[in-house]
Every structure is written in structure tokens, then in C-alpha cells.
């Protein structure tokens, strides 16, 4: 059964930025867009680059800096190839300033 894991302080995530955290062996990125938090797999499904490392955020999309695959951070869906598979998304919430990810 998945549970919420405390990964650190929520204020580590600035508006329009993404940061990755290790959660139960996975690398999960969290971004803050328009104040809301989104959590998604940090590993691009194309060639396994880390999306949070240099990925370009535009609205709710993030573009992998390696080869340009673009994902919707709210759903994980591919918006632009070369990736053809979505990234997983995870429930995330902020509680007493702590960042909690369900994974």
C-alpha cells in the first residue's frame, strides 16, 4: 500500500521550478506551478535523462533538455516526442511546510 513520504521542506520548490527527490527507490520530481504542486517521475521515458536537471518549464509542461521530449506535469502525458510513453504522476501535498509524496 502506497503511503505519503515526507521528503523535505515544501519551500525548497520555488514557483516555476522542479526538484527531484528519492522516494522508495524512485526518482520523483516535484514542481510548483501557479502555487500548486505536481509530482511526476523525474526519468524521461525516451532515454532516461533526469527531467529536473535543466528541463525547461513552460506553464504546466516540462521539456527534457537532452532530446526535447515534452510532458504535461499534471497528467504525465507526452506533448512532444521523441518520447512515446507518459511519465508516471504521483499524489503530492504540503502539510505544515513539509512536502509529502505518495509513492
Amino acid at each position: 500500500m502506497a503511503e505519503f513520504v515526507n521528503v523535505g521542506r515544501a519551500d525548497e520548490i520555488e514557483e516555476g521550478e522542479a526538484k527531484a527527490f528519492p522516494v522508495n527507490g524512485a526518482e520523483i520530481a516535484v514542481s510548483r506551478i501557479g502555487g500548486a504542486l505536481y509530482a511526476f517521475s523525474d526519468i524521461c521515458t525516451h532515454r532516461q535523462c533526469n527531467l529536473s536537471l535543466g528541463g525547461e518549464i513552460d506553464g504546466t509542461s516540462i521539456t527534457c533538455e537532452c532530446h526535447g521530449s515534452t510532458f504535461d506535469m499534471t497528467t504525465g502525458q507526452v506533448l512532444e516526442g521523441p518520447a512515446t510513453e507518459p511519465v508516471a504522476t504521483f499524489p503530492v501535498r504540503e502539510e505544515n511546510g513539509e512536502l509529502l509524496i505518495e509513492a
Partner: protein
Amino acid sequence: MADPRTFVVVGAGLCGATAVATLRGEGFEGRIVLIGAEELAPYERPPLSKEYLRGEDPFDRILVRPSDWYGDHDVEVRFGTHVTQLDAQARALVLAGGERVAFDALLVATGGHNRGIDAPGAELPGVLDLRYVGDADRLREAVAGGARVVCVGMGFIGAEVAASLRAMGCDVTVVEIFETALYRVLGGDIGRVLEAIHRDHGVTMHFNDLVARFEGDDRLERVATRGGRMIEADVAVVGIGTEPAVHIMAGTGLDQPGGIPVGPTMQTTIPGVFAAGDVARHEHPVFGPMRVEHFDNALKMGETVARNMLGAEVVFDDPHWFWSDQYDVQIQMAGFAPTWERMVVRGSLEDRSFCAFLLDADGVLRSSVSIGWPRDVRRSFELIRRQARPDPAALADPAVDLRTLVPPEG
């Protein structure tokens, strides 16, 4: 009633595979036939000089889509099939063996083939090139356990192969006709940065020189250059450019050495016949007529041309973008600048960490190229597409977000 149309895509590389996926994604329910000369499902070629060559990624990791995707989406595949000719009058393709495949719309995405080297001894075992997955397998086997390798040409293929072969324990010597690495695309200043990186990794480079002949009794033993060098070698890898695979257009007037000419929407002068990817000489609304061999262009053209086969008439105005991985360095470049008047650098060429901006005589940003600053390359896309004339001082200042330099619409 089902859609009675047949759309045929000839060329089962990234562009063709992306086009058929886009046709289905857009809801096209007619018949789709995907014809490819190789026996294999479409795969990505960039890893052939890198991860696949080095044995880090297996073949199934470099497929464009899983091989059962095509059947699952009712795409008829004809892999291992050669097309001999387009019969434009009859609106049909003629296959080797004489079978004809009629179409309502056709996409020609046949890519290119490697330019052969005109030098005695080029047929000797050990003289290789790299385009198909089998070529990468042959090269990997030929250098197993370490080998002395001559890379003929230091464009992107030569440079990436040289980097991979160093990682695989080979002695690598480059023979390149121009004055430095990647000169034709990146110019001298940036080319010399790449040259220095390769030198630091132990590659021997001979510039302003070219191969006179390959020598050996039963197989390659030496490479002789016009400049009088004699280089002992077990393997040579020839990477001196490609030619568009236009042969199926014979008789239409479109089989031109510079690529199949297409308009801004990628349609040829034959209605319903499109060309895209490496084979197309595209009338680009910003850069003018051009043919490029970029992965991203094949992908994006494949998406757009599929929509245009369905009648969308979208002008393809992508600013073009590519990357190249060499050692731990990633080069990225956007735009198109066969020549430029001025180069503005943010960061430092010397430190190998920069984004350089290439401006034409009118101050229009034509291209950006970077080592380690990919975000700035991506943020320059819109400036390039809009033919902006950004303030050079702002370009040079890393604190300036390039997105703020885009002029207002209209």
C-alpha cells in the same frame, strides 16, 4: 462507412514512423501502408554512434515504437521491401518485383545514404561506414578488444564515433579535409573548442588533409593521405556526408541531388505527394530552401506532414534543433546559419561552457550553439523563428532571460 483512402509512407525511419503514428493519432481510419527497405521496425539512428555502438543500449531500447505497435494500430508494414519507382500518373508505387501499391496520398521519407569515398582500397575489409544498425554491429565487432582506427571526416558522425571508440579503448586518428573539427557547421572558433576536447581525450587529428588510398593485402593495414602521412590502422570509419535517397522520384524531375523539392507545407509539385525528413529540400519560411539531417527535424516534419496529408496545410516553420554527445559534453544547436557576420558569446569558449549566438549582417539571430547551456538554446527558438534582432549586449549577459528579448507579436 470506413475511410476508403490509402495513405502510403515509403521510408520506415523516424520521420515515416512518426507520420503514421500521427495519422492514427489524428483519427485517420483509412488504410496505411508503411514501406521500409530495412527488415527492421523503425529505430532511432543517433544511438548508433553512441550508446548502441558502445553496447550500453540494446536494440529494443532504440526502437521508435515497440515493434507490435504497427499491427496493433492497423498499419500494414512492408519491411525489407524496395521501392523502385513512383508512377505519378497512375498514383502508385512500383515495388521491386513489379507489385504496385496505389495511394491517395504519399509521403516519401526515404532519408539518405552515405556518400562513398572515392579512394583506391575503399573496398578492403576493415573500411567501414555507419548508417544502419548492422553497420554499428560490424564496427563494434571490428574494434572488440581495442583497435587502431582512422576516422575519415570529422563532422558529427566522425566526432561522435571518435569519442565512442576512445571510450571503447581504441587508438583513434582523424583525417579531416577542413581546418578543424565540425568546421562546416560550427565554424572555426567553436570547432577548435571541440578539437581541443578531442585532443584532451587522446584523439590524434590531422586537418587540411584527406585520404589518398587505403592499403593492405587482404584487409586494411594502412591509410595513406594526400599530405603524405601513412597511418597504421586496423579499421577505418568513413563519415564524409550523405546524399538524399531520391531515386524513387526518377522521371518526375524531383530526383534532385539536393533533395526532393517541397513547398512550405512539404507537398511536392505533384498533388498529394509529400516529402519530409532528410530527403526533403524544404522551402523554409525563415531560412529559405534547405535540407537538414537532424533527428528532431525528422520527428517534427513527420508530425506536421501527416496533418498536411489530411488537409491541414500547415506551414512548417520549426527553427531546427539538434544535439551531439561527445564524451561528457553535449553540444546543442538551433537555427540555420550557413554563414554569419557576428558571433556573440555568453559564458566562455575557453571554459567550454557557453551559448554562442550567430547573427547575420542585419543583426538577425540565425543560430545558437552551446556546450552545457541547453536552456539558452531552447529559449532562443522563438527569437530565431521570429527573425528577431536582439541587443548583442543582452545576448552576452547570462543574467538576461532570452525569453524577455522576443519582440511583441505583430
